[in-house]
């Protein structure tokens, strides 16, 4: 019969409409403006309305989500900020669109490079959020951020992030990427323990050698 296919199709759209209202009725107020509701709307069970009312509601960002790099610094007990970056330049070399500029610090007395950046710029207009800098950094010093709301009125200066703008504490990093942070900390502590053990052994050996010579 001509028109049977169309009617069958309409049954699909009709069911879609009906499910939307049914879902709303069944789930009541919980469906909107709650974390549970947002989670439901991005699950495999969702029927009916699918959308999230941004900016009132926001989708949670998964841990691996990446948007614009930042530099991690450790907060020392005395309150000082210890930047992890050693200005080795791997991020600047691996960066596909070349949006990273680093000026290495040189010691004014010896003239040798010191392992920290004097200037560090990222032009976020050029950055393509590929995440290579974070992936290949051997010091866990540069990481990808989760903050995607960076619209601004100025196209020039506001989009050129300098060292001050880029630095964020390790606690912030631990907050947005808990699993990565925990993994990296474990490796770091293991390394430090090994280092300490090696130093201890060395000291013991030296002490023993001293005792023997005496």
């Amino acid at each position, binding site marked *: 019969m001509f028109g049977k296919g169309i009617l069958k199709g309409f049954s699909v759209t009709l069911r*879609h409409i009906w499910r939307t209202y049914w879902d709303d009725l069944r789930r009541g107020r919980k469906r909107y403006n709650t974390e549970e509701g947002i989670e439901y709307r991005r699950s495999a069970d969702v029927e009916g309305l699918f959308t999230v009312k941004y900016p009132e509601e926001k989708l949670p960002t998964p841990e691996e989500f*990446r948007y614009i790099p930042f530099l991690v610094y450790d907060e020392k007990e005395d309150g000082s900020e210890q930047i992890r970056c050693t200005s080795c330049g791997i991020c600047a070399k*691996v960066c*596909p669109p070349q949006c990273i*500029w680093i*000026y290495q610090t040189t010691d004014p007395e010896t003239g040798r490079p010191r392992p920290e950046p004097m200037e560090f710029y990222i032009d976020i207009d050029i950055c393509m959020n590929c995440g290579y800098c974070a992936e290949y950094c051997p010091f866990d010093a540069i990481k990808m951020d989760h903050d995607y709301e960076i619209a601004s009125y100025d196209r020039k200066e506001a989009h050129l992030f300098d060292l001050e703008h880029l630095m964020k504490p390790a606690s912030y990093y631990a907050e947005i990427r808990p699993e990565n942070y925990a993994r990296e900390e474990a490796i770091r502590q293991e390394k430090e323990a090994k280092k300490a053990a090696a130093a201890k052994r060395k000291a013991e050996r030296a002490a023993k050698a001293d005792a023997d010579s005496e």
Partner: protein
Amino acid sequence: MSETTTTLPSELVKRFPQKVKADERDGYEGYLVSSKDLVEVATALRDELGYDYLSSVTAVDYIDDNMMEVVYHFYKSTGGRELTLSVQVSRDKAEVPTLYEVFPSADFQEREVWDLLGVKFTGHPDLRRILMWEGFEGHPLRKDYKEAFYQEDTKPFSNRWPEGEIYRAEDKNPFGKNVVYPKGFSSPEGVDPEVDAEMYGDLRDLAGAHVDDDGLATDFVTVNMGPQHPSTHGVFRMGVVLDGEIIVALKPVMGYLHRNHEKIGERNTYLGNMPFTDRLDYLSSMANNFSYAVAVEKMLGDKVKVPERAEYLRVIMAELTRISNHIWAIGFLLNDLGAYFTPTLYATEERELILDIFEATAGSRMMCNYFRFGGVSRDIPEEYFVKLKRLVHERLPRKVDDLDRYLTDNEIIKERCQGVGVLTPDEAIAYGASGPVLRASGVPYDIRRAEPYGIYDRFDFDVSVGYHGDTYDRYLVRMFEVRQSLKILEQAVRDIPEGPVILKNPYNVRVPAGEAYGRTEAPKGELGFYLVSDGTANPFRYHIRSPSFINITALEKMCVGGKIADAVAVLGSIDIVLGEVDR
């Protein structure tokens, strides 16, 4: 490399002992032919040796040898490895006879080579620029061409580290001062109408009065569809000559989104190109990653080994991409047919759920940048693997059934699509169509079967094929392929082993000198990467055989004789993405 040369079909050398010789450079395994014998050899390849599918035409500028090498990749439409044919000509007088008559699929590709590399194809009926604009000076892919914001030949640039001196390129070389015009070309404002007429090519000859069968004198009308037209899926333009409602001639005009991806690629390092491939067909970045990884891994050979788990993750991601791409394409085909946005939005829902998995695994929804040479960048999180399983086993099959029930039997869709935009199997092969377009025409050619890559030889799935070659069959083939992808996914999530996803992930990948052509079955068709390495950290040549670009070679063939309204549907059924067409 020399071992493989001997195992390759030497029938060609046997057939033309004087004219064809094997390429003996290190890392090359094609055949060399002189430009005067090219047409004869290519014809014999097609008619006698079964290499009836000309997949890719490109050229390499060997500036140190003052040589321009035009490279052709032929395949048998029954499956198997490629046959590479190269023609070497002098750089100063780069002229090669056209293969347009033998392989119509060379049409746009030869124009592209002329446009970007300045190789003249003698005998080509319409050798105009295709990606660059008419007032452009020079051939940008030549090695001595320097772009407006040129800094250095290769990345990384020296002013980034250790003494980073920051400035914006546009401040040093402001817009307006960065363009060179050819001689006699005043400015874009002063475009000569002749130039515009040339843009329409042979359309110009058709415009004018003619007498139809009933003795009625009518005018042909030239209509310019696009570049800003909702049905062209982006900035794509068709110059159409109409007799009433019937299309008499059609010429695609493209390049509005051209950014010379290949030049950027040659400046980049090998690894640096991976995120750039995301931006080709931006709806299926995982598939682009896959293809590029396959090409580079082909060059690296034994140096790189992909762990089992990574192989499975690659297949999972590629098939998820195919599903999201196909239902998206179906949704937008319906948009083009006038079913505004309801089917599209139904498709979007499932796509969103797939993108959630990409985001949690790769870090980004669309620009995934997930593949590395020798694996993938990271493992899929546990909770998202559970989500993926539920998607594959429960939600997607149900929703695909829904979409099927919604659309497939719809009489209006049938009326609009059946018998529209027909492409016969012979034509499809000749025009170099690939992917769903080729298969809908009755050619059961799927690279996952014809020349398996990765671990596709382990999965049980059917190659979808249509028999009418019309718009409706292209729709059906996509529907069927989604189901087959689900079948592959079910096997993949069942069999995926535990283990590492990458063994070594160095940032400074070096590739041995030579050439390679790696291709995969991307959602839109055969996506190939042709790479030439000179042993340094940056590719010497980086060419993309993009399925969207080559599939529209057959657009004119499909549309002529049909109605103008159907051209919209036909274009929708080819499923192009302009990021990939224009590159």
